[in-house]
């Protein structure tokens, strides 16, 4: 038995890893981007500071890393050049084309006319690198250094090229250096030099830790000093080629020679990067419960021994608080609702099941069965809305509050008053959660008892002259309730997921409602956290129900 349990628990680990991987991939492949949510005004990051903030955000949530496997050490110069060329092609003037020139001249004339009509000129917009403005026209003679109209990249292509280049980060530094040295087009060399200063930047260690140990702090100081220096090694766009070459020769190449070992990867490094420098690996690194790091210091974190070494789900992208803290705050509400509902469902349905099995095929039995069956088919959100309308809103009654868990006025009251307030609030939600499982459970109880009641030993008990209540209660019920008891384990996940709709309708701040809100905020870490908690509960529930089989029924062994 012990062996079996240990084996099952060990098997749970890979299952859990695979599930977390699938959820993770689904979330990360889904359209919509939390960093897009972070830039509240919906504009693209244009100024350098805004870009910097965007990158820090990306780094903080590991969004700059590939999802599952990292093959960036295999990037070649061609890959990098392709991205660079896309961006540079946009900055180049458009090749001269007679029709186009005419068209543009016409437009300019029209614009001038309009400008004279409306002298109050619109304020100049901040010209970003991706602004869709009218490209300047190259001199027809200068064929080499222009982009044909049809090859001019779209805004989306440039954005994605910029994004890709900066995501590649340190991995492409040697390639950029090589492009800056050897490429045959001047503006590409220029761009590569400027791109170097952002790609060589190193991320700060332990960013989310507000109080890092001194050695990390020193190291961070060093990194940011270097980052600042590297950032300055740029050549303004209007300077000529010599300045570029000079910058390269004076600063970049010596620096690169000095730090060359940072960009050369041994086979071991490559394997490590392949599996570990990914979003998923970083996520798991935080999640790993065996790392036993204390819970992040938050202003209102619960500093109890229980939370030490708890898995870290990362920060919420919405409120920048650790997701684990929020979940721990919200879990009690859901657990209260869920366990109360299951408890009540058992308390009510077992007697009903026994009673209707005892009165099998009578009118009474059929009436009860039909009523339970109707309850089973009644969607709980419909009932919840109806109950609120009839009993809470005041049409015609307002016995109950319309939502919430605890009245604000009762928050500082003595514990009994608080309990009364809670009971008052959760009465309707509990009703809605309970009635649906009643039908299923009592049916199980009924068939369980019916299976037993025809058994020989029951006949023996009756023949011995035992009273009917003794026969049913002591001999039949004990065996007949085995199937329904073992169901209890499988109802554990229901504690979390079953109450989502009810929490939503009654506005109870449990984790169902938290998940619902997080989905609409694209709060990946929060969604992952809730889904994983719920997965763990399902796994434990299944295990418990299997174990309870063996405990309740001695005929079943796992050996």
């Amino acid at each position, binding site marked *: 038995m012990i062996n079996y349990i240990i084996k099952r628990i060990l098997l749970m680990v890979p299952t859990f890893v695979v599930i977390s991987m699938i959820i993770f991939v689904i979330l990360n492949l889904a*359209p919509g981007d939390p960093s897009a949510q972070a830039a509240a005004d919906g504009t693209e990051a244009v100024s350098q500071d805004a870009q910097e903030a965007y990158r820090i955000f990306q780094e903080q949530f590991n969004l700059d890393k590939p999802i599952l496997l990292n093959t960036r050490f295999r990037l070649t110069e061609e890959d990098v050049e392709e991205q660079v060329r896309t961006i540079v092609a946009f900055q180049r003037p458009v090749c001269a084309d007679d029709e186009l020139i005419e068209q543009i001249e016409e437009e300019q004339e029209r614009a001038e006319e309009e400008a004279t009509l409306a002298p109050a000129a619109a304020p100049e917009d901040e010209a970003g690198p991706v602004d869709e403005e009218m490209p300047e026209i190259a001199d027809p003679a200068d064929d080499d250094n222009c982009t044909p109209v049809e090859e001019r990249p779209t805004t989306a292509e440039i954005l994605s090229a910029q994004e890709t280049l900066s995501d590649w980060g340190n991995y492409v530094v040697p390639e950029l250096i090589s492009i800056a040295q050897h490429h045959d087009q001047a503006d590409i060399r220029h761009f590569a030099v400027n791109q170097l200063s952002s790609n060589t930047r190193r991320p700060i260690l332990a960013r989310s830790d507000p109080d890092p140990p001194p050695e990390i702090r020193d190291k961070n100081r060093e990194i940011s000093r270097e980052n600042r220096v590297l950032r300055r090694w740029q050549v303004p766009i209007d300077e000529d080629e010599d300045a570029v070459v000079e910058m390269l020769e004076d600063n970049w190449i010596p620096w690169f020679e000095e730090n060359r070992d940072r960009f050369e990867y041994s086979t071991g490094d490559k394997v490590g990067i392949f599996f570990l420098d990914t979003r998923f690996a970083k996520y798991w690194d935080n999640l790993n419960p065996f790392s036993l790091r204390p819970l992040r210091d938050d202003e209102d974190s619960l500093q109890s021994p229980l939370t030490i070494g708890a898995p870290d789900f990362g920060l919420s992208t919405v409120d920048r608080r650790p997701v684990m803290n929020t979940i721990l705050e919200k879990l009690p509400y859901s657990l209260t609702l869920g366990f109360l509902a299951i408890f009540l469902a058992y308390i009510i349905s077992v007697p009903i099941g026994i009673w209707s099995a005892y009165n099998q095929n009578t009118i009474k039995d059929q009436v009860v069965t039909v009523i339970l069956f109707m309850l089973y088919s009644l969607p709980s959100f419909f009932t919840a809305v*109806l109950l609120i309308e009839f009993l809470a809103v005041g049409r015609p009654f307002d016995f109950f509050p319309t939502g919430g868990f605890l009245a604000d006025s009762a928050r500082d009251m003595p514990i009994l008053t608080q309990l009364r307030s809670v009971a008052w609030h959760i009465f309707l939600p509990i009703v809605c959660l309970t009635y649906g499982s009643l039908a299923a459970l009592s049916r199980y109880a009924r068939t369980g008892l019916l299976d037993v009641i025809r058994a020989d030993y029951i006949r023996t008990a009756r023949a011995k002259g035992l009273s009917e209540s003794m026969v049913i209660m002591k001999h039949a019920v004990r065996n007949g309730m085995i199937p329904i008891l073992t169901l209890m384990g499988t109802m554990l996940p229901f504690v979390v997921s079953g109450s989502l709709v009810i929490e939503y309708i009654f506005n109870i701040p449990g984790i169902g409602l938290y998940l619902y809100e997080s989905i609409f905020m694209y709060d990946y870490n929060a969604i992952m956290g809730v889904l994983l908690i*719920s997965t763990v509960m399902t796994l434990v529930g299944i295990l418990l129900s299997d174990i309870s089989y063996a405990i309740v029924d001695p005929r079943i062994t796992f050996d």
Partner: protein
Amino acid sequence: MTSQNDSTTTEPDDYQTYGEIVWGQFKKYRVSYYSLWGVFALFVLAMVCPVLAMNVPFYLYVPEGVGPEILQGTSYPWFVALFDQNFFNSGVDIFFNFLLFYVPFVFLVWFGLRGKLSPGDKSLYKKRRNIFIGVAMAVAAIGFMMLYGAEFRQPYVDYQALTELDDGVRALFPPLEHSYRNVNLMAVNEGPSWEHWLGTDREGRDVFTRILYGTRISLTIGIVAVGIYATIGMILGSLAGFFGGRTDAVILRLIEIMMCFPVIFLLLTIAGFIEEPSVFHIMLIIGFTGWTGIARLVRGEFLRLRNQDFVQAATALGLDRLRIIFGHVMPNAIQPVYVAATFGIAGAILIEATLAFLGVGPPDVPSWGQILTSGRNTQDMTMILASGFAIFLVISLFNLIGEGLRDATDPKMRK
């Protein structure tokens, strides 16, 4: 033709196939039997929706000099609008409109052919009947694909405004002159009246019409989603059960993984992340997450059956494995799937209604859950009750059928 003396192929007169036994048992559960008719009636209702409620006239006569030129003379716009993808922008609607003509046609052909299918010989008759059903379904699928793929579109005409011109325009409208999408800001949040039987919603759309067309959505989602997951479950379950060993271990692990997924959460997450969710997305999501139960059932049946004599006989005959699995074992293993699938339809409809209620479904589809939400937002009791009752009705019909089917397939319960 079988000769009367050949006792190995002739069946005795009281011979009943397993399906006939189950059907005979099923008829004895009156409530379930009537529920089956209820579902059938719902299907007919879903098909005839446009006959009952649509804002396009069956028949239109516009005298010369009135309205746009193309409309002049006699026309039958209703028949055209049925397949117009500007008017019905969902494939579900086009499909049911197609069935509205196709199903009566099939029945006519069937009654015409029935005399020629040699009804005297039971087995031959059955074989030909099955061929007929197969051909009819294939034609339906191809016909619908072609119709939907043709992307027939027409400019929108406001026929109601045209008839109100009252210049000798004659038109015959369906009894309810509403479409489920027609926004009418002049009649917002109205109570029930003769014109709007269940009132109007926040955008002035007729609630009764929306609930009527919602039948189509619910039935389609239930049946297609369960069709998807029953197929997946049957294939994976049969492979696991038949081959055992490593295949079984891998598929079991897969089942365990899928079972541990918090399905309603997962559904909500995926549905929330799809940028423009459509009915088909919801079906696919439910279909790809729900197959574990059926896979386990089928696996269990296959484990029980794979060592039986008839399987060994088939193996000894040298039949290939796929044929043994799907031709010999599957027919014997499939009956618990029917029961599970019937309950599954009710479950899928409930899930869809829940998703729509939470606001993650497709926005302009007349889903009952969505009607319930908007009724809740506008405190409109008629909308809440009507849509909630519709969900309740369909779910209980399917649950009742499932209940009857479960008892009918259970030898212990045989009456």
